[in-house]
């Protein structure tokens, strides 16, 4: 059974292009599949365009789910970016 991990972060800023880029680069470092879900939409966290397409905005809860050997580390890294990067706003 592959490991899985999940966490939810409420955004303190909009998930614009630059934080989406930072998030994608963080997710890409892990072998686990990482999926973001917000408002009933899902995106592959390793695709910057898919992450931007979510249109996730301030105040929305974003759930990060990962499946794979390094799932827990991937979720930790991605939630850290979501928490930190969206503070900047744009």
């Amino acid at each position, binding site marked *: 059974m592959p490991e899985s991990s999940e966490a939810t972060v409420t955004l303190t800023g909009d998930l614009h292009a630059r934080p989406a880029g930072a998030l994608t680069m963080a997710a890409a470092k892990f072998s686990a599949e990482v999926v973001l879900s917000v408002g009933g939409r899902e995106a592959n966290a390793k*695709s910057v365009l898919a992450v931007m397409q979510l249109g996730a905005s301030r105040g929305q809860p974003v759930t990060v789910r990962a499946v794979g050997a390094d799932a827990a580390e991937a979720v930790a890294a991605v939630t850290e970016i979501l928490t930190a990067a969206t503070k900047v706003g744009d």
Partner: protein
Amino acid sequence: MAASVGIVLVSHSAALAAGTAELAGQVGGGAVLIVPAGGTFDGRLGTSADKVLSAIQSAAAGGGGVVVLPDLGSSVLTVRSLLANGELTSLGPVELADAPFVEGAVAAAVMAAGGGSLKDVLDAAREARHAGKL
């Protein structure tokens, strides 16, 4: 340090190439080599084989190969003729990406900045065609 993939943006417009390079570079966190090759030497709209060649030479410095994104029409032809003439063979692998210009550049930049291989970066640019905005 591992070899990194460089990106060349070929446009008829110097402003479009430079602006797209700026945007993609910022989304990529500044950790990627993106070289714009837009317009002609005398500032008109058009494509210049010399500008494109020089941009590819700069982008090849990362050692991981180069992905070239053309905007339209003769941008494609200009890159194709450089590839066909063998002028790029000494520079390592150079791939021409069939991709939307802005989205492809952003997706490629993020993949390259994250340490992706030449194939990863090329695939990211190509897959941008299927990504929606809304």
